[in-house]
């Protein structure tokens, strides 16, 4: 017993050091500027900023839209995951849901805003085809659509993942117990998922709360806090002090979130057995879920279609003849190959390091019998990274590591991504761990395995599909991220997204969509590869065989 704690302690120290140096230190440097002006510490600055009208409006706007987005996104994601796990719609349809629901994740957010304009705008594809503009897309409506598409994949992945670990036999018991459909739903699906649903709500809330790309394109007069932050940090007069105050305020909800997560921790349900029993088929349910899912997918795809159309059109909307001009132009641009190479290096290294870091962090908080404080601290880090605007992370890193060896290297980009995207993979694997039989480690130990032996032979194989999912999450996110690393790329470490940002500056949309497609394809390949590996190593067999 002592020995095992020892290993866990080492891991904890590693994790602690990592986040102390690469999260808290940069963050403190940013936040210090909130209360410090020219070496004098005072609260004047804070008072000055938060009493501004623009600040108050945008903050309340952000709360409103982020909450609504989170609610809808979690609901839609739940519905899609439910259709996959609890109905018998055809297999290919389930695969399609899986693909479409996660598709938006495979592209950079800065692409979404423009995609929406080119879909539902005055000259948009939708408007051209159907001859009318479905709604006024600037402001609330556009933002909601943008955020929904942006956050849906995360919520979907989280919920779908947890659903795999629900004991489907409970469903049978509930039928035999004569439950009404509502009560059955509550006890066999909703209640076991409640914890994950709250987590999904929180994650999607912060994604929309902190994203800047979508409001920049279609926010209109509905100003949100992230754009206020951008204007302060990087506007015509960069003011890091004011920016720091806004970042500080934006962190308050994350502290609330940490407390909420702590509070509902015990809602998490741990099944002793996960059995995949046959569920009685309900035709009506299949049809209903199938049709609604199809509509949701249609909505997602319709926004994305434009990204696949525009690059191959000469000059939308004025000359819509087919043409490879933009594709060729983009590929001929000088440093494209370097940029693509850099993107891959960073994404793969991030995926490897990130998966390891979040895996071991989750072991500490979910499997090791560590003190509450330690487990809590990791959860805190997870929620914090999730709630931090990328811009704040990037600027913090810039302050913290200027003049060091890692400035302008791949390493700083990789570490930044690992820290910035820590939350979701961590939550995924933690959930998986919490559903996993508690006595695996003890069993392994008793069978003569070392701690690492058990990890390698039992824990990892049993969670391998989650590991692959974490890997592709990290890979995909480092391929699409921009907000933090834009401040950290050097002359020789530029990636595809920073190139997109450059093009955006010159309003070259077709080229932007070409690069987005490139990222999309890379991500699709990675996902397919991971799915293939998952299938090969299907963890299912560990449960089925045990049964």
């Amino acid at each position, binding site marked *: 017993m002592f020995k095992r704690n020892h290993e866990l302690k080492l891991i904890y120290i590693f994790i602690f050091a990592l986040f102390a140096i690469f999260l808290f230190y940069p963050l403190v440097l940013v936040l210090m500027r909130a209360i410090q002006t020219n070496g004098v510490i005072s609260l004047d600055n804070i008072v000055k900023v938060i009493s501004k009208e623009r600040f108050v409006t945008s903050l309340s706007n952000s709360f409103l839209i982020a909450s609504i987005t989170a609610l809808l996104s979690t609901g839609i994601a739940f519905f899609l995951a439910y259709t996959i796990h609890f109905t018998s719609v055809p297999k290919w349809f389930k695969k399609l849901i899986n693909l479409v629901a996660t598709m938006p994740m495979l592209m950079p957010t800065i692409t979404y805003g423009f995609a929406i304009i080119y879909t539902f705008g005055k000259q948009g594809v939708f408007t051209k085809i159907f001859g009318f503009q479905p709604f006024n897309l600037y402001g609330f409506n556009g933002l909601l659509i943008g955020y929904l598409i942006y956050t849906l994949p995360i919520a979907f992945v989280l919920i779908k993942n947890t659903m795999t670990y629900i004991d489907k036999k409970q469903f049978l018991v509930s039928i035999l117990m*004569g439950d009404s459909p509502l009560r059955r739903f509550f*006890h066999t699906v909703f209640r076991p998922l409640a914890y994950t649903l709250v987590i999904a709500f929180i994650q999607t809330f912060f994604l929309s709360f902190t994203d800047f790309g979508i409001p920049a394109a279609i926010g209109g007069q509905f100003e949100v806090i992230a754009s206020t932050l951008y204007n302060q940090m990087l506007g015509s007069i960069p003011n890091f002090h004011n920016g720091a105050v806004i970042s500080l305020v934006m962190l308050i909800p994350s502290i609330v979130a940490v407390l909420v997560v702590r509070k509902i921790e015990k809602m998490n349900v741990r099944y002793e057995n996960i059995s995949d029993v046959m569920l009685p088929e309900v035709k009506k349910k299949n049809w209903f879920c199938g049709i609604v899912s199809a509509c949701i997918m249609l909505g997602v795809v319709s926004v994305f279609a434009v990204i696949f159309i525009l690059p191959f059109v000469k000059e939308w909307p004025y000359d819509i003849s087919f043409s490879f001009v933009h594709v060729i132009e983009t590929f001929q641009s000088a440093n494209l190959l370097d940029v693509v190479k850099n993107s891959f290096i960073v994404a793969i290294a991030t995926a490897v390091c990130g998966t390891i870091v979040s895996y071991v962090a989750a072991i500490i908080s979910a499997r090791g019998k560590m003190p509450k404080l330690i487990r809590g601290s990791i959860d805190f880090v997870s929620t914090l990274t999730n709630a931090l605007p990328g811009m704040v992370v990037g600027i913090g890193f810039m302050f913290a590591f200027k003049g060091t060896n890692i400035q302008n290297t791949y390493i700083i980009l990789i570490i930044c991504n690992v820290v910035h995207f820590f939350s979701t993979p961590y939550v995924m694997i933690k959930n998986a761990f919490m559903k996993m039989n508690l006595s695996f480690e003890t069993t392994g130990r008793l069978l003569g395995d070392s701690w690492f032996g058990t990890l390698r032979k039992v824990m990892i194989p049993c969670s391998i599909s989650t590991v692959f999912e974490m890997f592709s999450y990290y890979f995909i996110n480092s391929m699409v991220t921009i907000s933090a690393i834009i401040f950290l790329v050097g002359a020789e470490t530029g990636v595809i997204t920073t190139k997109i940002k450059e093009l955006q500056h010159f309003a070259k949309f077709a080229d932007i969509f070409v690069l987005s497609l490139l990222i999309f394809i890379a991500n699709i390949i990675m996902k397919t590869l991971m799915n293939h590996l998952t299938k090969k190593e299907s963890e299912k067999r560990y449960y089925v065989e045990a049964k």
Partner: protein
Amino acid sequence: MLTLNNLYKSYGDNTVLEDISLSINNGEIVSILGSSGSGKTTLLNCLLGLVEIDAGTIELDGKDITHLPIEKRGLNIVFQDYALFPHLSAGRNIVYGWRNNPSVSTQEEVDDLIDLLDLREHLDKEIHELSGGQKQRVALARTLTLKPKVLLLDEPLSALDGVIKESIKDTIKQISEEFKLTTIIVTHDPEEALTLSDKVLILDGGKIAQYGTPQEIIEKPATKFVENFILHQLHIKRDNILKLFGDQHV
């Protein structure tokens, strides 16, 4: 009376159940005995209504229940792993189904049941705080509050240790008598089947090898299978026990 008439079930080319016919009188305890792959789980699923049978009928007290949905058949089951709701306390698990149909049992009956199964002191406990035997009894209680006509028990003793095993056996018998409850037990253990039940159904490759009282089976095994596999296991067990006492009693 529960009657099965010429049940057939196959998955593709693989015939799992072939011409199963039998009847079980009310209040009887019947064990379905067989090795893995014998079709006993499929038979259980067919009875429960999880699996649609290909041919044949199932009747309960003269009523055809072959095509009724599972909740309307009057059968209920305690799963091998109990499938208790992990987010509810023991007490809430027990009254879970009863709360849907409060008219089935009175408060008094539920209280009696809790006392009978000796669960009174565990009501407030979380599921993960219970021992295997306690979980088993909670699951039994949860099912019995609904007063099923037929109780199915899927490997009820396999996860329990010796002493508790015997006490659960007694409990099952007691309940069956007290509630006049037809009880069907699925098991792979001949000893369990023969000591616990009024009748034993032995399945072999999806067909009935023998259906009779324990005595009939021991005295007149109907097929080579019954003799070689089922009874042989018991002989080995007996011999091993006798060996412990040395040669003097042999």
